[in-house]
């Protein structure tokens, strides 16, 4: 804080001095653009819904999602593709192939990071473990404690990715499994308080790793109106800080656009979720300016 103030104070004289030198390129403002694409609760929906489906006729389909993602990647190569869990369970593809096809397709679509939903334990934690080699992307989960399970060391709390020199920290949160999944499926998976874990991880990502962008992949659920004490994406966003974006799942909430929540510091956190079954793809574009005086300009959010 002290250092930044000093730089700011010295700014005028600095400009006067460097005027005579060849300006290093970084002095010019660099504009950078990161695109975040995301899904949640795809639930083994590989093919589009049938044309005569009563709810979602001819919607969804992984092969169409692939085309859309490819188009967006051609627009902006600095694109990340993320998933907020419940990849498994929902069609016979899961019952017959145990999640193999889901993971292989996500690998072909070049997913970068996913978190684990409650249904991803449906065939037991061992089956999830045996499917992991089919996933050429990483899973993150910060509040499931896997140390006494086969997943120990295979799931990291967060992952850091650098795109166009922007450092992006992505961490995962899962819902409490007790009561949702049979204990003999999730075995000795421990559940840690998601709020406390978020406080630790965001401190780590912001202040130690110095991330420019912090994303939470959450399977906590969007909001529980009837049970306001149950932790959800909206309540998590309110009582924490330094999260730019929460990509949610579990509640199959079809948001027309992201919800903007004021966090504990009064700053904006976006919460988004795209329902379920691969019917939609979420897209959020972050535009960065490189500047020394961060507070001089606000962020324009167009949603």
């Amino acid at each position: 804080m002290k250092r930044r103030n000093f730089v700011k104070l010295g700014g005028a004289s600095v400009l006067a001095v460097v005027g005579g030198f060849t300006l290093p390129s970084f002095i010019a403002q660099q504009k950078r653009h990161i695109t975040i694409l995301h899904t949640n609760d795809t639930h083994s929906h590989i093919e589009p819904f049938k044309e005569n489906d009563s709810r979602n006729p001819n919607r969804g389909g992984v092969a169409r999602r692939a085309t859309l993602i490819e188009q967006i990647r051609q627009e902006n190569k600095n694109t990340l593709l993320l998933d907020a869990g419940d990849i498994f369970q929902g069609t016979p593809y899961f019952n017959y192939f145990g999640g193999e096809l889901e993971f292989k397709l996500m690998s072909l679509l070049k997913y970068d990071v996913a978190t684990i939903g409650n249904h991803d334990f449906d065939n037991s934690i061992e089956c999830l473990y045996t499917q992991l080699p089919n996933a050429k992307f990483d899973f993150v989960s910060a509040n499931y404690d896997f140390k006494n399970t086969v997943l120990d060391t295979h799931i990291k709390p967060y992952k850091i990715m650098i795109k166009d020199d922007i450092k992006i920290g992505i961490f995962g949160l899962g819902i409490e499994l007790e009561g949702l999944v049979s204990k003999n499926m999730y075995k000795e998976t421990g559940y840690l308080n998601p709020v406390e874990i978020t406080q630790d991880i965001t401190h780590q990502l912001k202040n130690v790793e110095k991330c420019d962008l912090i994303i939470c992949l959450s399977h906590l659920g969007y909001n529980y109106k009837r049970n306001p004490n149950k932790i959800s994406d909206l309540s998590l966003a309110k009582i924490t800080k330094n999260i730019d974006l929460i990509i949610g799942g579990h509640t199959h909430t079809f948001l027309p656009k992201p919800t903007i929540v004021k966090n504990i510091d009064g700053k904006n956190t976006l919460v988004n979720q795209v329902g379920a079954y691969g019917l939609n793809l979420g897209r959020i574009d972050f535009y960065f300016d490189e500047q020394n005086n961060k507070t001089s300009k606000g962020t324009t959010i167009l949603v």
Partner: protein
Amino acid sequence: MKQIHFICLLLLFASCKNTEKSVTKITAKNIVIDSTIVASSKIENFIAPYKEKLIGEMESVLTYTANDLTKENIGLQSTLGNLMADLCVDIANPMFKEKTNASIDFALFNSGGLRASIDAGNVTTENAFKLMPFDNELVVVELTSAKVVALIKYFIDKQSAHPLSENINLLIKDDCFDLKINGEKFNKNKTYNVLTSDYLQTGGDGMDFFKNPKKLTNLNYKVRDAVIGYFKKTDTLRVSIDNRVKIQ
């Protein structure tokens, strides 16, 4: 003065290394995936062999029925409902006995949970998936006699052919009923073990009498797996409308 300028310049260089990259604009949209997007042939080709195998599995014949099995409400019974309730008891009772040494007294499910009829002819794996697309699991609740009365009142009140197993003989006369369970007169001093699904046990379809039972046993076995298991071991399905519910 010169010295100060020099320091400032150094600081500028130093700060460049960790320049703050601040977000100035965010745009967002949730994009609908529909038939206006051309499917990637690469991905479709990758799915194809799995799809073929799945179609093969789904078409595999498990059993046979001479008649259509439907949810049609025939005096608070249905052919499909009777089949479902009875086959679940058939499959679940040995599991429950092994876990608890006790027997299931009867089963109740909801007619809304039966998602598709089965046409006369060969019965395939696909029929089982369409009948029961949900992943509900079988549970057994030990109910007090008062809750069994609440259950029967719910059943009569709803006028739906909610699947009840053949263990029940229910005679409905106007506002009264006479109940036998496994051939014995309903006993107010007894508790009863009732088979249902975890969905209904947790209050699905308003079946509140299943909540907070004296004892809850989760069999950790999907209703659909019970259907498939029963179909596999049964050559021909024999289903009828019988005396489990009689309306006078």
